[in-house]
């Protein structure tokens, strides 16, 4: 059963990447749809990362000693100021690792 799901998933990801590279398109995509899709990446990615930060074991964690929250704050500030993926990863992972050691 899982194998079948994996194959169907593979079809979906390939379809989404390949569709508009195909010479003859069965459908036309309008300016409105394109505009709507332009919000897809921030919406989907945010809907994945925000719960990782705030929800642990099905509980809403806003405690100031939550290393996820503190690390994410550092990441947001670094990303906003630097626009660099590597700098953001570097600083926030360091802060997060240090907090894991000191807070537990």
């Amino acid at each position, binding site marked *: 059963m899982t194998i079948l799901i994996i194959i169907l998933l593979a079809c979906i*990801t390939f379809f989404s990447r*390949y569709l508009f590279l*195909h010479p003859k398109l069965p459908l036309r995509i309008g300016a409105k749809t394109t505009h709507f899709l332009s919000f897809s990446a921030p919406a989907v*990615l945010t809907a994945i990362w925000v719960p990782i930060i705030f929800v642990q074991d099905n509980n809403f964690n806003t405690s100031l000693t939550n*290393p996820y929250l503190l690390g994410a704050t550092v990441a947001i500030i670094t990303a906003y100021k630097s626009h660099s993926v590597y700098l953001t*990863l570097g600083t926030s992972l360091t802060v997060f690792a240090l907090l894991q050691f000191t807070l537990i």
Partner: protein
Amino acid sequence: MSLNKKMTSMGVVLKGVLAMLPLNLAVLPWGILCGSLAIQRGFSVPEAIMMPLLVFAGAVQLVVIELINDNAPLATILFTAFIISSRHFLYGLALRDKLKDLPFKWRGSLGFLLTDELFALAGTANAYQGKFKLIYALAAGGSFYLCWLLWNIIGIIAGSYLPDLTSIGLDFAIAVTFIALVIPSITNLAMLVTVVVAGFLSVLLKLLDWELGLVISALVAMYCGYLTAKKQSSTNTIKTSEQI
């Protein structure tokens, strides 16, 4: 092919691989987590390997593994994967004019490799033009595929021996990768509205334990962003027409 030409294509391959290297390394924690998570959520080793080998999409793998483990209905799993993948339609659309008339071997292979990372590296105006640029993109995308597969396999091996890797905070590395991608893209009010709505709803629906939480949060957020942009452009039009 003359020796000289062969040397040049080798150089182009090397250039593509080197340009992709930082991104190949940036997804290391993510790949390890995806591999180990699959094992810990009851996937067999061949099934866990098929995920990066065939599906080859980090966000889809991460989210869907949990859904399969929760015995979510097939329609929910596939619809969630479709919504997560929907941003890729835009990448194909952006590259359409350059790639649509090429033979299938190029379209098919570059299409398969068209991840966020490859698009970020080679989504610019002069990419994919001429054979060397295509080889460059193929080498960059191909090296990313091989690394992703390798990181997943490391995760599969680690996951068979080590306890839950989310407990040591590997999931934090993924959150940060997304923060680094999303925050710089907030350049206007519409994007800000999208991100705030997606963040608020996703936490709320996660706490309520809704299986379609991600899909609903993302779609509502996209719509709110779209409406904000529309409203802003219409007020701007009124303002300009008043000035005239």
